[in-house]
């Protein structure tokens, strides 16, 4: 089964779960006076769940025939691409999300930019470190001073 039909299967599952909530569980907590309304909070979701299930089934069963398009990236040969780099960068983004508060903006961002370039194969430390530092400071200045949004600059234990 091709990837698009697997995805249709997953989306069908999501639509079914959503539909179950809309049709069977949501209305139980509805106040009696609201039941007299022609529209309930669950009305629109009910319609959507039906539409979603129908379209997902059309894709899953291959009812709509179209010529197979050659995508930009052939997912069957993911190994040929830089998949390792992409996954490491995603992990780095997660790490950044987790470190931003506890370690402060300045440290996290500089580290993110340096490690990001390193993952992509950059080894010129003398270029990388100053660029990352300067860029971090500029962005911090813009966000903090110009846009006026507070971001903790330093790690929490420095009282930043």
């Amino acid at each position: 089964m091709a990837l698009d039909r697997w995805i249709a299967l997953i989306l069908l599952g999501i639509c079914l779960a959503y539909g179950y909530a809309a049709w069977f569980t949501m209305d139980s907590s509805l106040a009696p006076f609201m039941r007299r309304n022609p529209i309930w909070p669950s009305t629109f979701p009910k319609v959507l769940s039906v539409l979603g299930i129908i379209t997902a089934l059309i894709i899953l069963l291959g009812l709509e025939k179209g010529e197979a398009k050659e995508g930009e990236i052939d997912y069957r040969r993911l190994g040929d691409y830089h998949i390792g780099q992409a996954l490491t960068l995603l992990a780095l983004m997660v790490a950044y999300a987790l470190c931003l508060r506890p370690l402060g903006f300045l440290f996290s961002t500089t580290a993110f930019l340096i490690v990001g370039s390193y993952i992509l194969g950059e080894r010129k430390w003398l270029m990388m470190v100053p660029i990352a530092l300067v860029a971090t400071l500029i962005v911090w200045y813009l966000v903090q001073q110009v846009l006026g949004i507070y971001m903790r600059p330093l790690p929490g234990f420095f009282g930043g």
Partner: protein
Amino acid sequence: MLEGLLIGLQTALSVQNLLMVVGGCLIGTFIGMLPGLGPMSIIAIMIPVAISIGDPSAALILLAGVYYGAIFGGSTSSILLNAPGVAGTVASSFDGYPMARQGKAGKALTIAAIASFAGGTIGAILLMVFAPALSSVALLFHSAEYFALMVVGLSAIAAFAGTGQVAKALLMTVLGLIMATVGEGALFNLPRFTMGIMDLQTGFGFITLAMAMFALPEALFLVLKPRKIEGEGDGEIKDLRITRAEAKAIAPVIGRQSLQGFFIGVLPGAGATIASFLGYAVERNIATKAEQEEFGKGSIKGLAAPETANNAACTGSFVPLLTLGIPGSGTTAILLGALIALNVTPGPRLMLDDPQIFWAVIMSMFIGNLVLLVLNLPLIPYIAKVLSIPRNYLIPFILFFTLMGAYIGQNNATELLLLVGFGICATALKFADYPLAPLLIGFILGGMLEDNFARSMQLYDGISFIWERPMTLGLLVIAAILIVLPSYRSRVAKRKASGVADGD
């Protein structure tokens, strides 16, 4: 109209807003030139900045400037490197790149700039004429018609997705609508589908979703498959002048394509990309035999046509956004999201309630086009240097700006994890050839669609509004036809084709 123009001019010519236009165009050109980053990603990245400005006119002017700049930058990399930064400028590379190979890069850029300028300016004039007329009609609409109109818009977007893709685009639209129902809606004040998670109480963040749908997958694709940048982009751009004969040759092309591109842009679902390809095809068909030979080998007409059409279409796509509040493309959907975040509801009331916003945007289109022609064109040889930034530095920065955009909007680290999660899902969808723009458009329109649906239901005490209001019924029938037609036609075509194959 004159009064409106003056208000708009006054707003657009303030120092702040002039800076916004110039800055937006420059940033847009700069980033639009990078292959792989489309206008949607660029605008998504710029939204937090625009929102924190706080002034809706200034924000919209900035974002519109970024939009034109991105298209302009995209054509620059199409011409110089045969590496279109934006789908809408792919057709520009057909003749622009051969011209550059023949050493006429400067001339090609000038033609592109003039064609873009003319397309954008004529488009803005048409917008000025049509938008007020359309919005005075739209004022007669009730919520039932609005509901139906949004259904038409959403189905048109799905219908334009291409053969074999309509079901996928529809599923994405429905998924977007489903995601819009998560959280506490204005209508019922009840949290829905939050699964007891506090962070979902306010629903999904629009900026996070926009970044996850466009900027992140595009950046990941750049990591997965580094594009080979060929060609000689080392600043050999000289002799920007064109001759009088050349100007004469492209003038009628520009005139025709401005009109055609504008009206294609007005249609929901058909944007700059379709306009530019269609413009190229039409001009090739009506050219003389000798000129047809030239197409694809460096014809100035072949370059002027898509360049005019894509800019006119960009302007045209503002018509449904500003008059009906319904975006026809991913890019205008993002603009709509930004406007809602700034407490401005685009639609027919916009022209009455906030005329300065409406007219300032139109005036800024003229100024923006002028900025692109006068400021950006001479700077192109220098801006083109951005193409030589190594990707080892570029990609971490793109990822960082994506993260920052989501963080600034919500000030919440959970949002960053959501961004990465959705980004991975979006990349998988992109692998499987699911279009992502319908999802975001559905998400942005979801709230309004449900509001209008609920209001009509309450007014008519049921769904009888569908057949009691002829206009609503008519619009819904159009929506149904739009969805069924593409698959019906491909089925008929296949039956014919199979008849030929099994002819024995």
